[in-house]
């Protein structure tokens, strides 16, 4: 428990990915089985005991401490588990000589212990732990562990031990269970790669490079296929004798949020692995990304959501069919297999992403710029003979995004960044003009924290410091004196913002020192142009 607690503490405070990886790797190398496996399960959210209720913790704390002192403390700390962890005074002489429980002891005990006996055991554990371990224990058993590291990061750290790719781990991951002893044995070179057998495992997807610095005239259009790049969530649909899954491209299982898609796959009963884009579709038209976002935000959708925001999948590729691995076949062959599979089964709420006929790239460029419709981000170019290779190889697939939209906005607030940027004001809230009751005022429409060079960041940081008018903790309000050209991918209406609009992927594209703030855009022209 102590090592796990130390790891959690360090991860929680470290913003740097490299540091997190190093800390995780150190832990996975030093901690014994099965503890490290349960730690990995805690990060991946795959532990299976019933969570302990906060009321029980409070009751336990009250046995030891005066209610008035507890209330004052809770008020100050603001978090129940942390308050109990800090305030807990080990019962003198009773359990203080007991060693702190190991992570696996905690997991095993809670998996089988009758409910009535849980408080007694927790009391003993709390007595045996120090404050930092008590905190980790309480967060773990109440199911409110925020590790500060994603499952993907933990797998990357594991992969670093064996100098394999995290994708290799993804390929077996969903066929394994805590405490993952076979996985650790494999990465440490003590056992062969675990066999996923019939489990619905994730297959690392093939990703495209942005089409930049590529001379299209050197490419023969006849060797290439073009498709629309849809603005949804890239997903992998997996159906095996072991079950059905919907994975994101980072191997997150989002099936629970999309029971409509899972049900269709179950009905089909076809053993396939498909690559596609998850979209909210009304008939053949694609709903805005924000609708999809709402579905993603829910662990399980409500009945009205399922009715009003029905999900669908636009299929790009087929990776497996009836146990046959198709990934080494050329794109054209896979495409034929996909089309024939589709024609045979005619699955509801799925479509095959259409191929766009073209004879030269110039035509495509025109199509791309004209396509401002909902749900299209740009074009994909795929080499006709390209096999399906995990990762982001340069050459076989290109994504050709349409040029971003831009707006000239005024900086209103700035906030300190994180990690390496913590000494810089690097997050900027920007706004547009509007007129309310005859008065012109700025209304914030978004926040940007990227897109600038290091030199530009230095300038912006200094500008913020020199023009601060008010401070609220880490936030500074600044005088209205600087215009930024903000690039973004799309605009949409939003009830959550005061301005009523929101931007997708806003970033700073240029600092407009030349532009007087009065000449920045108005909300009205913005809405007319982009919504």
């Amino acid at each position, binding site marked *: 428990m102590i090592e796990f607690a130390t790891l959690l503490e*360090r991860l929680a405070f*470290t913003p740097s990915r490299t540091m997190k990886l*190093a800390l995780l790797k*150190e832990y996975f190398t030093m901690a014994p089985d099965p503890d490290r496996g349960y730690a990995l399960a805690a990060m991946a959210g795959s532990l299976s005991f019933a969570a302990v209720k906060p009321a029980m913790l409070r009751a336990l704390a009250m046995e030891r401490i005066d209610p008035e*002192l507890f209330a*004052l403390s809770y008020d*100050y700390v603001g978090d129940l588990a942390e308050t109990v962890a800090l305030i807990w*005074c080990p019962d003198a002489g009773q359990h203080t000589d007991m060693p702190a429980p190991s992570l696996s002891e905690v997991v095993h005990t809670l998996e089988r212990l009758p409910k009535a006996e849980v408080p007694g055991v927790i009391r003993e554990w709390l007595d045996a732990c120090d404050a930092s371990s008590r905190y980790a224990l309480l967060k773990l058993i109440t199911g409110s562990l925020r590790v500060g590291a994603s499952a993907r990061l933990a797998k990357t750290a594991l992969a670093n031990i064996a100098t394999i790719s995290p994708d290799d781990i993804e390929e077996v991951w969903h066929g394994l269970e805590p405490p993952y002893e076979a996985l650790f044995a494999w990465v440490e070179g003590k056992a062969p790669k675990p066999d996923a057998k019939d489990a619905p495992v994730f297959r690392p997807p093939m990703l495209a490079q942005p089409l930049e610095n590529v001379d299209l005239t050197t490419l023969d259009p006849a060797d290439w296929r073009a498709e629309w790049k849809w603005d949804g969530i890239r997903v992998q649909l997996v159906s095996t004798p072991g079950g059905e899954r919907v994975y994101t491209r980072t191997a997150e299982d989002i099936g629970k949020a999309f029971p409509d898609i899972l049900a269709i796959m179950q009905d089909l009963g076809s053993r396939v692995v498909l690559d596609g884009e998850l979209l909210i579709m009304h008939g053949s038209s694609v709903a805005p990304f924000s609708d999809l976002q709402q579905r993603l935000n829910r662990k399980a959708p409500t009945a009205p959501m399922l009715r009003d925001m029905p999900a669908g999948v636009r299929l790009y590729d087929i990776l497996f069919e009836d146990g046959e691995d198709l990934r080494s076949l050329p794109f054209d062959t896979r495409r034929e297999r996909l089309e024939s599979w589709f024609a045979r089964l005619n699955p509801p709420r799925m479509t095959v992403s259409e191929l766009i006929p073209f004879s030269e790239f110039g035509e495509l460029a025109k199509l791309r710029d004209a396509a401002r419709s909902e749900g299209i981000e740009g074009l994909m170019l795929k080499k006709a003979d390209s096999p399906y290779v995990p990762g982001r190889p340069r050459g076989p697939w290109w994504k050709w995004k349409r040029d971003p939209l831009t707006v000239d906005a005024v900086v209103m607030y700035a906030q300190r960044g994180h990690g390496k940027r913590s*000494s810089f004001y690097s997050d900027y809230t920007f706004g547009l003009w509007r007129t309310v009751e005859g008065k012109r005022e700025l209304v914030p429409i978004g926040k940007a924290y990227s897109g600038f060079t290091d030199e530009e960041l230095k300038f912006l940081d200094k500008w913020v410091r020199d023009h601060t008018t008010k401070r609220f903790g880490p936030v500074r309000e600044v005088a209205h004196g600087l215009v930024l050209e903000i690039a973004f991918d799309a605009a949409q209406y939003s009830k959550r913002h005061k301005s009523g609009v929101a931007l997708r992927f806003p970033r700073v594209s240029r600092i407009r020192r030349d532009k007087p703030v009065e000449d920045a855009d108005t909300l009205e022209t913005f809405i007319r142009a982009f919504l």
Partner: protein
Amino acid sequence: MDWLELKPEGLFCAPGAFYIDPLQPVAHAVITHGHSDHARPNHTHVTATPETLAIMQLRMGEGRAGHTQQPLHYGQVTSVGDMQLWLAPAGHVLGSAQVVMEYRGQRAVVSGDYKRAPDPTCVPFEVVPCDLFVTEATFGLPVFRLPDPAHEIGKLLHDVRLFPERTHVVGCYALGKCQRLIALLRNAGYHDPLWLHGALLPMCRLYESLGIPLGELRSATVAQKGEMRGGIVLAPPSAIADRWARRLPDPVVCLASGWMHVRQRAKARGVELPLVISDHADWDALLDTCRATGAKEIWVTHGREDALIHALGKMQIQGRALRLIGYEDEDEDLTTGAPA
């Protein structure tokens, strides 16, 4: 006790006609220790330990640390009017003292700031039995049971070994915390040169001249960036996450303070490695000390008095909140989030 009273200038001892740590210039001030909220400039006559007087001189400059000065060693009794006065070690920083006053068979003790945890840079706190004990309560909540500082130093050194290509910059207060950190590092076997922000060096030199060895200290301000890689840099808390720190190669931001015990506090400061090291008594130490003095009456000066007075009440000790305004914990300014 009716001969110790609260006035706008501060706590006043009537029979001796002196103030303890007054907030405004007075004719006679007895100063517990050198922190700027307790030791203020321009008193006419100042009584304090020789170390505190030296610290005041360094901080305030010649002439502002009292027109006349009376050095008083720990335990050395002096008569003021028809009362007796002496100073006892408080264990807070070098020279820190409790003020012990005896008058008509009664004894009152004003603790100033104090701690009970070991500190290689100052004389440990001494319990003085008394009728009235005036205590601080900076960490007057039961959630503040602070860990052993050696454990926190171990955490820092482990991190330094784990990330040898990064530079650990530790925020610490210039008087007391800084020197204690250095001494703790040396005790833990760390003998590499330490890099110091310019604002910390003069106080360290004074500690050394007063017999506290600190090992090799170098100026971080004039150092080449590459020289400090893998090393430990000490700086005032206001500098660690601000422009000054940009001169350091790939810094890990650490902060040594009792407030780091609570996660939200540490998070709000953007600290990457919080080190729970405090120069104040923690909750257990406050209660133990109040009990050990045997005082029937306890006055609480600054800090979180509600919880402490409540807990004393349950021990049948009468507590009273003085609510002295103007004293702040030297670490408190770190956590208000105002970038300096």
